[in-house]
């Protein structure tokens, strides 16, 4: 319901400044909800966690003086100083290794990758130094670190700036992988991630940073936290389950509205957590609707949808009335030209068509609009 309300506010460019925000927090208890952009949600979460725990510190390129490449860390350098907001030289491998070392000695780093594409330079440290350390040391070394940054496709940034890493990181034991959609997701999940003793990969989305969502009074409280590993049913339905995460949740909600008019009631599940995957919620929804569509922006082979499909086939096979449909990005490197880019990522129409196919309402597979 709130998802639909927030859609109308999307391009208003409404954002909350720091001082306005403080007033909102004070006034929040008098109202049922306030609007907040994802950017401000992340900023406020970082601010509150840094304020509550002196061991939390931020590290990354441009996070300090520049206020953050996407302004997520705005104002934090001024507030906490250069010892807690560190501008790093250009070496993802280097600063990730350093952050992991600091975490070994009980600091709580929040490492920002300008985009997760650059995390590939540091992936050895993320997996071999962070994810596996607790296991390899049999519990002697814990790594309370958070790796965050924008993930997946943006707009017109080409092949090396558009890959989605949810499936790669989601495969690794030892990591927790989160993918927020709304501002409430962003606040609750980031706070949970920072407080978690395990290494967490926090996949944001650049195009969502500027989007506004209503946030409840509870979500604005500094102790607010969302559980890791629990998906959210954004919209209830009875005909088809659509499972997705991050930006695609917004597309799926729009698709659901279109489907509603055609008499198909879609249940939209916002995963929130890629690892651990909330198999229970997914399966109980499929057992109710008997149809499953998964949606992701990333590459199709070995994607998140593949794992969801396998889970449902293993646990709820008898409940399926139709084969599972996976919607994913095209199996090509992301092209640059706007028309080609549009064809390479899922659009609302693709979700609508898939839902109709799965409900035996249409047979068209082609993306002819």
């Amino acid at each position, binding site marked *: 319901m709130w998802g639909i309300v927030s859609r109308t506010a999307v391009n208003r460019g409404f954002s909350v400044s720091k001082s306005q925000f403080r007033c909102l927090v004070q006034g929040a208890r008098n109202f049922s909800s306030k609007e907040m952009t994802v950017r401000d949600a992340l900023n406020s979460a970082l601010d509150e966690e840094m304020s509550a725990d002196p061991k939390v510190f931020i590290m990354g390129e441009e996070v300090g003086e520049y206020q953050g490449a996407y302004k997520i860390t705005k104002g934090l350098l001024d507030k906490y100083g250069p010892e807690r907001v560190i501008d790093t030289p250009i070496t993802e491998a280097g600063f990730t*290794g350093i952050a992991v070392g600091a975490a070994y000695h*009980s600091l709580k780093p929040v490492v920002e990758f300008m985009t997760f594409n650059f995390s590939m330079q540091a992936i050895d440290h993320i997996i071999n*130094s962070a994810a596996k350390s607790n296991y390899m*040391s049999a519990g*002697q070394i814990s790594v309370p670190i958070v790796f965050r940054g924008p993930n997946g496709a943006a707009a017109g940034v080409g092949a090396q700036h558009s890959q989605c890493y949810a499936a790669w990181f989601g495969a690794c034991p030892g990591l927790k992988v989160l993918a927020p959609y709304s501002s409430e997701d962003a606040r609750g999940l980031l706070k949970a991630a920072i407080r978690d003793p395990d290494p967490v990969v926090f996949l944001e989305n650049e195009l969502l940073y500027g989007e506004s969502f209503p946030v409840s009074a509870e979500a604005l409280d500094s102790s607010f936290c969302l559980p890791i590993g629990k998906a959210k049913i954004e919209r209830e339905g009875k005909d088809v389950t659509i499972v997705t995460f991050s930006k695609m949740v917004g597309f799926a909600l729009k698709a659901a509205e279109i489907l509603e008019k055609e008499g198909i009631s879609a249940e939209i599940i916002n995963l929130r957590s890629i690892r651990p995957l909330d198999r229970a919620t997914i399966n109980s929804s499929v057992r109710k609707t008997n149809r499953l569509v998964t949606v992701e922006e990333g590459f199709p082979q070995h994607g998140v949808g593949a794992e969801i499909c396998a889970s449902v086939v293993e646990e709820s096979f008898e409940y399926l009335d139709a084969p599972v449909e996976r919607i994913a990005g095209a199996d090509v490197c992301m092209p640059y030209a706007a028309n080609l880019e549009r064809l390479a990522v899922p659009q609302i129409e693709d979700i609508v068509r898939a839902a109709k196919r799965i409900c035996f309402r249409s047979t068209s597979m082609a993306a002819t609009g």
Partner: protein
Amino acid sequence: MSVHLLKSRNVVSHFRSKLGFLAITNQPTCWNTNLNHHFHTCSRSILQNLESPHEFLCENRNSLCFHRWESTMAEKHLNVTEHAMDYPGGKVKFTSDMSFIPGSPEERIHCYRVLDEDGHIISSSNFIEIGKEVAVKMYMHMVTLQVMDTIFYEAQRQGRISFYLTCIGEEAINIASAAALNFEDLVFPQYREPGVLLWRGFTIQEFANQLLGNKADYGKGKQMPIHYGSNKHNYVTISSTVGTQVPQAVGAAYSLKMDGKDACTITYFGDGGSSTADFHAGLNFAAVMEAPVIFFCRNNGWAISTPVADQFRSDGIVSRGQAYGIRSIRVDGHDAVAIYTAVHEARQMAIKEGAPVLIEALTYRAGHHSTSDDSTRYRSAREIEWWRGSQDPVSRFRKYIERKGWWSSEAESDLRANTRKQIAEAVQFAEKTEKPPVAAIFQDVYDVVPSNLREQEKLLRETISRHSKDYPSDVPV
């Protein structure tokens, strides 16, 4: 003249920045000033005196030699003009002499040594006198390390453990560096430094348990042999990835500094490890972040089969310190006293000044890379034997302490016999100890065992009980 100098702020500030550089390099140099005078200095203490140049100039006239500049002398800075520019990063003087700095110095950076090959103190050495108790303890640990390596290596050859790595030839590096540190200094090893853990009190039995991967292993059987680790000994669990420990040590040092602790971190790596990207980032960052970390490079000439000539063309690793703005020293890796002194000093500098230090120990990998390697395939057995025999750090240090009257050949044979027996027994005991229970597979993936793994464990146990004949009866469930 000196009065004129004091009034000239330009000169003093030139002087200040130049002397800063001099203090770091400890080499003579010369430059042109407003008054066309040469200054030749060689004292490191000058750096400390730059706070008050007035007093300094008055008190230290003797150490500064004022030479008249001779235009006919072919000097390095022949055509330096006063014209300088404040670039981002600092002031730089211009020269109209186009010359390239050579890739390698005419003479390689000298190697600090205190004991000669016969264990005599080289006269006029500047070193720390190690007391009898510590010296004997050091020697005994070096012997234990040597014997441990021999027996565990043989155990692998006999098929009792799957893998082993020796540190033959590097016993002094292991023990002397450990002895110079405090217990609270956090150690980030590569994999050829079990001696540091031994020094800190890790027992032979604890080593054997890890090698056999039994239930008493602190690693709960999760890692292959020689991947020791112990929180209570401040020794970070060994990870196979090469060089990753370098930036990690920097991050941990930063954490120690933020906590205001009287402790530093030390990280060890080899000549091969210095080629990794992590080495570059680690050293660069440590300098920028001013982290109290000691970078200890064991340059033993070989990275498996790659000789140093194929690894880099720089003058070893010590020459890179200056490239990162880090103080560095080259020491004889077979000389326990030199290593002890260098690490002790480095530790003081790192903590007091919050600055990193680089130590390169020149040595030779007298053993094979590991039990998976036969190094006679790429180097001559004669070469290996020569280094093993004539440069053995253990015998060198023994000669030193024997001469002091602190050791005897009787003590020697007793120690070796007892240690051999102890280690052999430890291996036998470790072999008989139970392996870790099945639950250990699922523990420590995360802080708290998640529901999917609890489920898997349950399924596994059910499978084991249903098909018990397919599972070994002596392995705990």
